[in-house]
């Protein structure tokens, strides 16, 4: 394990930024710290870097306790959201800085800076100043600078947050490629779940300074352990079970089919992703709910359909455009909806043991 964080806590005044956070980043992996703003993700990164001291807890880097090692000797690389390039230095001087303060021989510095500038595809820009570069180029210089002293781990704090959407997409793909070449253990902070999914091997989901869930992106998406994770990672329909317990609107209740009729009296909710729902004009043999279309929003390749089932329960379906056209759906029409995947999540108000974390294909 390259980065091990144990029971980390940090309080700023009355604000508990981080509480009892533990996780591990395996050697060579790229892991994302994902959470909304104020969830403590940047604070955790700064504690690992040594820029903040934790109130309690330990940080280990490549097997050594680093909790009390000063920032200069932790051997981490850090990429800031706003680049933090030295504005009065050229690109070359920026990248060389970490080697110069370590008093490396000049020939070695020159050779290494050249190599890194080629790696980040900025070889021709060595004598420019940061103000003469675009945002994406600046962030690549920042990355080269952080890699120059050969850090044990690389930490990236919302590295693409200040860039516009297209450059962000390019850089994401490029970072993933770079990581596959360099293989430095990396931890990066983001609030963008798509970014976390695209780039990382594993994702740590944070909320209110706590770890909600840790795992590969697809697993978090398919088997969230809390309503927060389900709702933070992409769109999801949360349907309160009690509200669905209304036999009059049912053909055969899909929840009934999946979990048994008893479940419908519990306080829990079931979660269905918008693309895990099928829509029909006539009741089929599959269990389905009856619904009314409230609104159709074309979003390019898909159409977002908002419906209400069982009275006021809103439901959102993402349907491929051609399917919507084939069915000829329009606002105000009654349709039948059958889910393909239904998930329950334990641990909301009253976790019921037999329901927690179940995952059904219907």
């Amino acid at each position: 394990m390259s980065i091990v964080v144990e029971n980390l806590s940090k309080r700023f005044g009355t604000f508990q930024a981080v509480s009892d956070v533990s996780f591990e980043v395996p050697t060579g992996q790229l892991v994302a710290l994902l959470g909304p703003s104020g969830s403590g993700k940047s604070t955790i990164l700064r504690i690992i870097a040594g820029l903040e001291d934790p109130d309690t807890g330990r940080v280990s880097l490549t097997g050594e306790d680093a909790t009390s090692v000063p920032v200069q000797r932790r051997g981490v690389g850090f990429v800031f959201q706003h680049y933090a390039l030295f504005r009065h230095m050229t690109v070359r001087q920026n990248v060389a800085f970490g080697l110069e303060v370590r008093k490396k021989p000049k020939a070695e510095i020159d050779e290494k800076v050249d190599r890194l500038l080629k790696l980040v595809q900025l070889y021709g820009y060595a004598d420019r100043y940061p103000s003469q570069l675009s945002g994406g180029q600046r962030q690549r210089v920042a990355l080269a600078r952080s890699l120059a002293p050969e850090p044990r781990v690389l930490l990236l704090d919302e590295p693409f947050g200040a860039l516009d959407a297209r450059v962000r997409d390019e850089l994401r793909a490029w970072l993933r490629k770079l990581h596959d070449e360099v293989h430095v253990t990396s931890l990066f902070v983001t609030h963008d779940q798509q970014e976390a999914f695209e780039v990382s091997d594993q994702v740590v989901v944070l909320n209110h300074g706590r770890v909600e869930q840790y795992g590969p992106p697809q697993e978090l998406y398919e088997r969230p352990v809390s309503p927060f994770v389900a709702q933070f990672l992409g769109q999801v329909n949360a349907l309160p079970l009690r509200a669905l317990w209304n036999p009059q609107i049912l053909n055969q209740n899909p929840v009934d089919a999946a979990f048994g009729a008893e479940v419908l009296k519990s306080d829990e909710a079931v979660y269905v992703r918008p693309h895990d729902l099928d829509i029909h004009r006539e009741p089929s043999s599959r269990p389905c709910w009856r619904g009314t279309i409230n609104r159709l929003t074309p979003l390019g390749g898909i159409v977002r359909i908002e419906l209400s089932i069982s009275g006021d329960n809103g439901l959102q379906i993402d349907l491929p455009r051609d399917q919507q056209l084939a069915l000829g759906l329009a606002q105000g029409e009654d349709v039948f909806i059958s889910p393909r995947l239904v998930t329950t999540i334990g641990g909301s108000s009253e976790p019921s043991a037999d329901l927690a974390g179940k995952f059904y294909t219907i």
Partner: protein
Amino acid sequence: MAINQALTGEPNGFNRMSASKWGSLPIGRWLLMTVVIGWFAVLILVPTVALARQAFAAGLAPLGRAMASDEFLRAFGMTIGITLVAVVVNTIFGVCFALVLVRQRFWCKTLADGLVDLPFAISPVVTGLMLVVLYGPDGWIGRYLEAGGFKVVYALPGMILATLFVTLPFVVRGVVPVLQEFGVDQVEAAYILGAGRWVTFWRVTLPSIRWGLAYSVLLLIARSLGEFGAVMVVSGNLLGHTQTATLYVHDGIEGFRPEGAYAASLLLAAVSFFMLIGMGTLRKRVKTSKQT
């Protein structure tokens, strides 16, 4: 340069307006400009010209003689010496103080922040009096120092102290906003790259605040050269001994030796002129370094 102009739009826009619309300015604008320029002339231009005229009225010979006199040279030597000390001490202190104010949190921060401006608020004469009360022959500290044979007031140390006090706020006030603008990102980046505090200060922080600092130091020098009130009170104004350039001008007027006063004034004014040019250049530098 062209990009800068396009971005700010300032020089281009201004030229266009002044070139094409000069003749068709509405009466209100004409009036405003006349008042502004007239006021400027009456208050600043005319007195300056008058001084120069009067100084050169008797030809260059008396001026040259005054400038070659021992008292004149000593007075300027003293002013330059005191200014040098003030620049060195208050630059170092000012940068330290600004760093503490911007980057540290402590309980009396607001108080300290406010008190830095005290020398601006207090009349220099009062400053001089404070120093006399403290360091004078019968002063709280002065009586012990004088007993030990160390004269502060009516001697060079007192004059230096007075100038230090009066010029203290310049660097602090000039550097604090630049440091705030600079932030801590680059400092943290340097730390993470392995640089210690000292290296980070010299290689990252100082180069980033240099133009703001230079501007403040220039203001400090101008104030120090022109300081009169506080130094007057603590110096005793002993001819050729504790006399600075401004005190020399004062003495010249009082003692009916106007050539000396003219010569010293001209020299001080010339120095000020060059410093104004320097300030203008530096202000531009500060501005552009903020943009990048």
